[in-house]
C-alpha cells in the first residue's frame, strides 16, 4: 500500500452493532440448543428403541460382552501389530506405485501409448480382481512356482498383493487430483522454464495431493482393514485372532475389540487431515481474488 495511514478514524462499536451481536448470540444460542436437543433426542430414541427391544439382552451378550472383550483384547492387540506393520510397509509402496501409474496415465502424445495402455490395463484389472483372489494368487501361487530368491513369508506375499491391488485404487485418486488442476497452472510453470517433471513436482502435484487427501484417507483406512486379508495365508492378525476367539466362545464381541483398534488408528488420521484441509482453506479466504 502506498497510502499513508493519516488520521485513521477509531472504531468504537456502535450501539446497533452491540445490539446486533447480542441478538445474534441469542438466536445462535437458541438454534444451537434446538440442534443439540434434537440430535440428542434422535440418538436417545435410536438407543432406546434398541435397548428396549425384546432381543436386546441376547444381542448385548453376543456383541457387546465386556468380559469377552477383556478376554480377547490381548490376543487381538498382539495380532493388530501385524496389521500395523503390514500397513506401514505397504502404504508407502502403494503411494509410490499409485503416483507412478497416475503419471503414466497422464502422459500425452501417441508415443506414450503403450505405457499408457499398460497403466490403464493395470488399473482396470487390479481394481476389478477381488483382493482376496490376488492374495491367494500371490500367497499360494508364488511359493508354488518354486522360484529361487523369491520370499515366501506369507506376510510379505500378502503385503505384495495388497500393494498391487491398492496401487490401482490410489493411482485413480491421484489421477483425479492431477486432472483437477487447471492447465493454466502448468502453463505458468512451464513459462517460468520449469521442465515437465519440475512443473509436476513443484506446481501440479502439491496442489493435486492436497485436493485428494480425503479420498486417499479412504483408501488408507480400507487398506488398514484389508491387511486382514493376509490372514488367509496363515498369519494371526487382529481379525483372525478375533475370529478364533469368536469361534471358541461362540460370541462376536472379539470382533468389537478389533474394530476399536482399527478406529483408534483411523480417527487420529482423519483429524490430522481435517487439520491440513482447514489450513489450506484459510489460505484461500474468499475476500481477495474474487
Amino acid at each position, binding site marked *: *500500500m502506498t*497510502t499513508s495511514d493519516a488520521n*485513521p478514524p477509531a472504531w468504537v462499536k*456502535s*450501539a*446497533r452493532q452491540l445490539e446486533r451481536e447480542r441478538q445474534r448470540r441469542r438466536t445462535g444460542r437458541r438454534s444451537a440448543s434446538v440442534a443439540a436437543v434434537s440430535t440428542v433426542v434422535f440418538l436417545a430414541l435410536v438407543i432406546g428403541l434398541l435397548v428396549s427391544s425384546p432381543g436386546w439382552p441376547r444381542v448385548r451378550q453376543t456383541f457387546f460382552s465386556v468380559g469377552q472383550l477383556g478376554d480377547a483384547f490381548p490376543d487381538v492387540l498382539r495380532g493388530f501389530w501385524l496389521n500395523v506393520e503390514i500397513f506401514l510397509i505397504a502404504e508407502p509402496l502403494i503411494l509410490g506405485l499409485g503416483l507412478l501409474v497416475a503419471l503414466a496415465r497422464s502422459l500425452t502424445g501417441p508415443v506414450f501409448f503403450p505405457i499408457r495402455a499398460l497403466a490403464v490395463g493395470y488399473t482396470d484389472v487390479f481394481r476389478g480382481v477381488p483382493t482376496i483372489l490376488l492374495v491367494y494368487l500371490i500367497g499360494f501361487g508364488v511359493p508354488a512356482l518354486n522360484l529361487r530368491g523369491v520370499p515366501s513369508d506369507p506376510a510379505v506375499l500378502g503385503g505384495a498383493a495388497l500393494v498391487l491391488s491398492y496401487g490401482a485404487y490410489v493411482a485413480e485418486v491421484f489421477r483425479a487430483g492431477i486432472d483437477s488442476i487447471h492447465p493454466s497452472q502448468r502453463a505458468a510453470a512451464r513459462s517460468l522454464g520449469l521442465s515437465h517433471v519440475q512443473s509436476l513436482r513443484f506446481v501440479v502435484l502439491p496442489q493435486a495431493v492436497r485436493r485428494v487427501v480425503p479420498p486417499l484417507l479412504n483408501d488408507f483406512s480400507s487398506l488398514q482393514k484389508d491387511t486382514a486379508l493376509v490372514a488367509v495365508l496363515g498369519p494371526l492378525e487382529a481379525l483372525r485372532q478375533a475370529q478364533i476367539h469368536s469361534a471358541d466362545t461362540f460370541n462376536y464381541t472379539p470382533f468389537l475389540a478389533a474394530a476399536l483398534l482399527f478406529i483408534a488408528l483411523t480417527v487420529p488420521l482423519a483429524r490430522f487431515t481435517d487439520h491440513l484441509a482447514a489450513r489450506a482453506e484459510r489460505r484461500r479466504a474468499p*475476500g481477495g481474488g*474474487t
Partner: protein
Amino acid sequence: MTARSDGIDGATPRSPDAALLRIENVWKTYHSQPVLRGVDLDVAAHEVVCLIGASGSGKSTLLRCVNLLETVDDGAIYLDGTEITDVRADADRARKRIGMVFQSYNLFPHMSVLDNITLAPVRVHKTPRAAAVAQARELLERFGLADKAKEYPDRLSGGQQQRVAIVRALATRPSLMLLDEVTSALDPELVTEVLGIIRELKESGMTMVLATHEMGFARDIADTVCFLDNGVLLETGPAEQIFTEPREPRTREFLQRVLESGRI
C-alpha cells in the same frame, strides 16, 4: 448508531425520495485488520456512483458487503429503505434485486455461456426457459457474443468472459448493479460499447455502483464519484468536482498520479 440514522427505523419503508441504497458507518475487518472504516454513502435511485481509489483501498470489499457476501462488522446497509444487514433479514431476497459482476468474472465453468446466463432467471426468478433464452440471446447479441452462446467459459478470451459475466448479471433485471472493474479486461472498442450499454441502463433507470480504475470512464458515466483511501471514504462529490477541484490533498495526489499514467 451514527448521527445520520436520525429516528429512521430500518424496517419501515421510507419516503420514495430517499436513497435506494444507503450505507451507514460500515466497518469491515479481516483478522482484526480494518479494511473498511466507517463508510457512509447514499445512492439515489437512477444514480451512478463510481468508487475510485488505490489498489487494496477496499472497493471490492465494499461491493461485497453491499451484496451481503461479507457480514459487516458494524453499521448498516439499507436497500429501498429496508435494512438488509438486519440479523433477521433474508439475504437471498435482497440479493435477488442486486446484480454483481466480479473482477475475476467467476463464470461457472461447467455450464455453457447460455446456461450461465439463464440459470438465475429460470431458477430464482422463475422465468420460463424459452423467454430466458430469448432474452439471453438478445443480450449476447448486443455484447457481440452471439456466436459464443454454446461455448464453455474456459474457451473464451478474457474480454469475452467478462462480457458474459456482465450479461449474466443483467439477465436477472436487478434494480441495483454492482460492477467491480468490469472494463479492466475489455478492449477499448468494447469499453465504448459497454459504456453505451451502461448509459442506456442508466437511462432506463438502473442504479449502479462501480469500482473502477478507469478515470475517463468514471468521469464520463458517474453522477457521483467516491474516493476511498485505505478503507476511509475520504471524499464524495459530483464527478466534475472531484476530477477538477478535489477538496482533499490525498485525492489530488491520487489523481495527479493517475494523470501521469495517461488513463484520464
